[in-house]
Every structure is written in structure tokens, then in C-alpha cells.
């Protein structure tokens, strides 16, 4: 009985949480939405900083486009695909949404992409990585802006196999993103003459990784590939250090953000290879943005923060160029422009929706090499967009091979 009452109470609380109203936009405004994990595991990867970046872009653009005020709608998708999709649909139907920034979580973004296709609202995927978004799950209105699993695998896996790490074992987050990342990395490893010895699928948000790590160690592989993200990545790397696994296996971060490295500390993270779409300390442009961002958020921006800024800017420029909010006209314009800003140099959007731009293979510095706060990465390789994102696969009907 107590359990039953407890369950009913819990359901009531959750329903109340889900039903928080969004600020409604009046007619005559240009509405940009942001659906992201604002309270969970990935909330610092984009989250509040992402919202700030979108606002910065709008302010830099002048606050209006086509003589109309630009407003932002924000909601927490709570890492639940149904919440993300229904909120997106609600905004499209009731709030006159013109464009959506998709935050973290591939599963949620796949659900939202279906809405983008049905409602004809451009979706700029910023935080999620699953490459299926521009393959099986592609739509004419999806732009995959910052990074994808293909680029991560091409960057990190290639670098490590070439450095002698030939045999691989995967610790994989058990959802769309993790499996896509593992598949992409496995292909790259084999293509470069390496071998995949096995994998273990770890439930998302596991509280302890040591059991899985011992299994990885038992495989005898040289490389411990972490196909996970956020807190799962940090906790698995931390445990790998604690159990002495990093002495016999070389850890590879298939996705790590700079806030993860910051929380782990260089002592734990040093030597790690990772691939990123952007780094705050690349050149004067990136440092200038980072400085402004830091003043507001007290942290250096991740690639997603810079991506959210750039995506908003790119969309608004396209709207201005065509003089219309018509999604088809805007998408056509987007797919023929070059993107040159603090995030990308000469980036372009392919017919399948991939935003092709330079990606960076990084190695985390040692505590001795790091000269100032947040001085964490050494650039190992600049990968051209074509090399990073690979050829068009033909899996998306919009872009035949």
C-alpha cells in the first residue's frame, strides 16, 4: 500500500514538473527554441551556457531580423525523447517556433528530428553526436552542426591505432549514442589494421564502473575505449586510474568535453587522446569569445557552447539573406553558404545535413605542461572537414552516394 501511494505521489510530482509552462511568444516575433538537458548529467556540456551563447549571438546580431524581435524559448528535455518531441511539437504548433537548437542526447534528438521533418522547422543539432541524424534519421530540415560519432571515431581512433594501439575493448553507454560511437570506432580500427576484442554495454548513469573495467582488463586489449560521455566518462576514467587499469591499457576518450577534463583534473586525465570540434585556446577569435563567455559563466566554453553561438548566428544570417522565414528558402540558403566565424572556417552544410568543418585531435597536457588555468589541450592534428566527417554514405535519401 505504501509503495502504491508512493508511486502515485511520485507520478503526481513528475507530472507537475513536466507541465511547467513555457513563455509564450506573441505574434510578429522570430522564435528560436532550445531543448536541452538542463538538469541532468549533460547540463554543463551545453545547458545554461548554451542558452547564454544563443543570447550572445542574438545580441551580437542586433536583437532583430527582418524588423522583428528575436526571442528564445527554453525547456529541459530531461533526457527523455518523448518530452523533447512533445515540447518541440507544442512550440511549433502554439508558439510559432522558427528554429530549434537541439541540445545533448542523441536519443532525444532522433525523436526531435522526426518533428522537425513533420513540422518543417529547421533543427540545428548542437549537443548530440549520433551520426544517424544525418543518415537513417535525416530530414531536409536537420543540420548536424558541431560534431558527430563518425568524426570522433575518425579523429581519436585513427590517431591511437597509428600510435601503436592495435587491440581495442569498448566500454559503451547502452543507448543510441554509445552504440553508434562504438560501431564507428570499430570500423576505423579495423580499417587501419587494428582488432576489436570485445565490448561491454553499461547502463546509462551507472554508479560504479569497476566491474566493467575489470572485464575490459580481462580482454587483454591495449586500448580501453570509453564510448560514453559526461559523468559516465569521468567516473569510468577515474575508476580506471584507481584500479591501476591505466597502467596496462591506454584509455581513449571517444567523447570528452573540456568541463569533464576540468573536473577530473590533469593528474587523472593527462595523456588522453580526444577529438573536439572546437577549443577555446585555438586563436584570437576563439579566445575573444571565450573571454566574453567566461565573464558570464565562470567557465571556459565547450565546443557545444561555441557551436550554439555559431548555429544561431548562421541561421539568422540565412534568414536575413533570403528576407524570409520560410523554412525551405532558409534551408536552401544555408546549404549554399560558407560558414566563417569563431567556430568554423570555411564550414559548409552538406545535402545530408552534416556541417563539414575542421575537427581537432587533441592530447590532454600533463600538469607540468599546463601553463595557465584551463590550458588543457595540445593539438595533435587538424583534420580537414572532409577527412573528419568522411564521404556521404548514401543512407540518407537526400544525399545519394
Amino acid at each position, binding site marked *: 500500500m*505504501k*509503495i502504491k*501511494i*508512493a508511486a*502515485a*505521489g*511520485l507520478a*503526481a*510530482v513528475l507530472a507537475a514538473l513536466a507541465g511547467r509552462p513555457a513563455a509564450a511568444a506573441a505574434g510578429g516575433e522570430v522564435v528560436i527554441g532550445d531543448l536541452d538537458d538542463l*538538469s*541532468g*548529467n*549533460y*547540463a*554543463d556540456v551545453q*545547458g545554461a551556457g548554451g542558452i547564454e551563447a544563443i543570447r550572445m549571438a542574438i545580441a551580437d546580431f542586433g536583437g532583430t531580423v527582418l524588423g522583428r524581435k528575436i526571442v528564445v524559448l527554453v525547456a529541459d528535455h530531461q533526457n527523455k525523447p518523448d518530452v523533447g518531441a512533445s515540447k518541440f511539437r507544442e512550440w511549433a504548433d502554439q508558439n510559432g517556433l522558427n528554429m530549434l537548437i537541439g541540445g545533448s542526447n542523441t536519443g532525444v534528438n532522433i525523436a526531435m528530428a522526426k518533428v522537425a521533418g513533420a513540422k518543417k522547422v529547421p533543427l540545428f543539432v548542437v549537443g548530440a553526436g549520433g551520426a544517424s541524424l544525418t543518415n537513417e534519421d535525416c530530414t531536409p530540415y536537420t543540420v548536424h552542426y558541431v560534431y558527430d560519432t563518425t568524426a570522433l571515431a575518425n579523429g581519436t581512433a585513427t590517431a591511437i591505432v597509428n600510435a601503436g594501439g592495435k587491440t581495442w575493448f569498448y566500454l559503451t553507454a*547502452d543507448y543510441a549514442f554509445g552504440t553508434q560511437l562504438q560501431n564507428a570506432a570499430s570500423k576505423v580500427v579495423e580499417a587501419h589494421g587494428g582488432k576489436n576484442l570485445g565490448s*561491454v*554495454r*553499461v*547502463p546509462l*548513469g*551507472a*554508479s*560504479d564502473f*569497476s*566491474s*566493467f573495467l*575489470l*572485464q575490459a582488463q*580481462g580482454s587483454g586489449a591495449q586500448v580501453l575505449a570509453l564510448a560514453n560521455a*559526461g*559523468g559516465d566518462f*569521468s*567516473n569510468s576514467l*577515474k*575508476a580506471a586510474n*584507481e*584500479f*591501476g587499469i591505466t597502467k596496462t591499457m591506454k584509455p581513449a576518450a571517444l567523447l570528452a568535453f573540456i*568541463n*569533464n577534463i*576540468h*573536473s*577530473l*583534473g590533469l593528474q*587523472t586525465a593527462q595523456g588522453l587522446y580526444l577529438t573536439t570540434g572546437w577549443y577555446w585556446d585555438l586563436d584570437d577569435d576563439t579566445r575573444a569569445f571565450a573571454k566574453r563567455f567566461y565573464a558570464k559563466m565562470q*567557465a571556459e566554453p565547450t565546443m557545444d557552447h561555441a557551436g550554439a553561438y555559431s548555429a544561431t548566428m548562421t541561421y539568422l544570417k540565412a534568414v536575413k539573406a533570403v528576407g524570409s522565414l520560410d523554412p525551405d528558402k532558409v534551408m536552401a540558403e544555408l546549404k549554399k553558404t560558407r560558414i566563417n566565424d569563431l567556430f568554423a572556417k570555411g564550414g559548409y552544410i552538406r545535402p545530408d545535413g552534416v556541417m563539414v568543418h575542421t575537427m581537432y585531435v587533441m592530447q590532454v597536457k600533463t600538469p607540468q605542461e599546463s601553463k595557465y588555468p584551463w590550458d588543457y589541450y595540445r593539438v595533435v592534428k587538424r583534420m580537414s572537414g572532409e577527412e573528419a566527417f568522411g564521404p556521404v554514405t548514401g543512407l540518407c535519401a537526400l544525399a545519394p552516394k
Partner: protein
Amino acid sequence: MTQVFGVPVAVILGQLMLGLVNGAFYALLSLGLAVIFGLMGVVNFAHGAFYTLGAFAALLGLKWFGVNYWAALVLAPLTVGALGIVSERLLLRHVYKLEPLYGLLLTFGLALVVEGTLREGFGATGESYPVPRALQGAVNLGFMILPIYRAWVILASLVICGTTWFLIERTRLGATLRSATENAPLLQAFGVNVPLLMAATYGGGVALAALAGVLAAPVVLVTPLMGNSLVTVVFAVVVIGGMGSILGSVVSGLALGIIEGFTKVVYPEASNVIVFVIMAVVLIVRPAGLFGKE
């Protein structure tokens, strides 16, 4: 290598050990829950939040005041326990007379407030807490490398659980506490300050959660959500052990840690649901839980 059911013995022993470590955390947390439910009848949904607060108290104590790990083991539970007493006096005591549902909703709300506040203040990524120097390093057990800190967690947890059990089941204070749950007005007539007893019980249960948080701080990243993922499992542990049974919560905590550990080898994908499957079976076969009174 010797094998059992196709799994090498060394692997089984290793998983057994890790299962014990996780079980030690489950036991500590479910112990506090069992004490609070058993003596007060409150389903304390804020338990995970107090565990998180314990870890944050240790982290911030170190960062701001240079309080080391050993001092934090004492100070963090005291601070968080005091916070628990304040919330009991201000909020929780008003719902005792109502249905259990109200206590549950209140503590759930409290947990959301704590989590939200910590997230606002410190972000969702979290920070690392260093392993104390005396417990650094690892020992080679032959079948696995066991970090000394994890061995310490098992030891500490067993000692704490044993002490708590002894306090409640074998001392005069414990007897008074238990009689308060049976018949509070009568006890009050004997001149015992029952409201004080209730506040102290909640504070004590919450301090146990905070202690578990300090123990966990060097093992996992200290994040506002660290208690969130644990607390649902711990509730299942308490239900399996029998709501309110102290011995039941400790034994089932350790046992479920071990069962979960084996699941991670045999079928990893199910490792986060196995506890709930067992809970369902137990509820069907023995609705009062393994150690509960019908």
C-alpha cells in the same frame, strides 16, 4: 585457469569483492532509511540528497577550510545531521499525523530543492575529491588489484552498520526509541521528550547518509546528482529487506551488491534492473520483505 560455469574463478572472486564494495554503500544508505522509516514511519525521499550533501560538505570543507578527510568523516555527518534536525523541526514534524504520502512528497520536494541549489552553485559536472594519503595505492590480491580505499569502505561500513544495530537493538536508548514508535503518548506520559527523540532519530538517519557521502567522495565525482541515481536502488533494497528492518537492510544491501556485481559479468545490460526484478519477486512471494514482520 579454473572455471565455474565457463567463468574463471579469478573473475568471480574479483566481482564478489567489487559487489561487496557497492553493497557496503547500499547497506549504509538503506540502514539510515530503515531507521527513519522504522522509528518514524517516514519514507525519506531526501535520503539521496543528504548523501550528496555529505559529499559536498567534505569537498567544500577541504576547499574552503582545509578540513581533511578524517575530520570530514566526523564533521560532515554532524553538519548535515544538524541540517536534518532543522528540517525535521521546521517541516517534517507537521506531517506525522497525516498519511505517509505527505511525508514522501515533502521529502521529495526537499531533495529537489537541495539538488537544484547545488546545481546552481556548482554546476552539474562535479569535482574530484582526492583519496586521503594513508589510503592511497592498491594491494594485489592475486585475483585482482584492490585499491586500499575500497577495502576501507567495506570495513568502515561494516563497523558503522554493526554499531547502529547495537545501539538500536541492544541499548536502553534504542529501547526508548523503539517504544516511541509503538506508543508515543504513553512514553510521553512517562516523562520522555518524544519530539526531541524524533528529531534526533531523523538527524541520526540523515547523518548516516552524509557519512556514506563522505565515504563515496573519493570514489566517484562529487556531483549534485550523485545521490539521485543511488536512492532508487536503495529504496528497492529497503523494500527487499523489509521496510524498517535494520538487519534486513544491511544484509540485503550487501547481498544485492554482490548479485548486481555478477549480473555485470553475465548480462551487463540488465545490471541496473536486476535489483528491481528481485524486488518484484520478493513483493509477490513475501510482501513484508525478507526480514520484515508480516
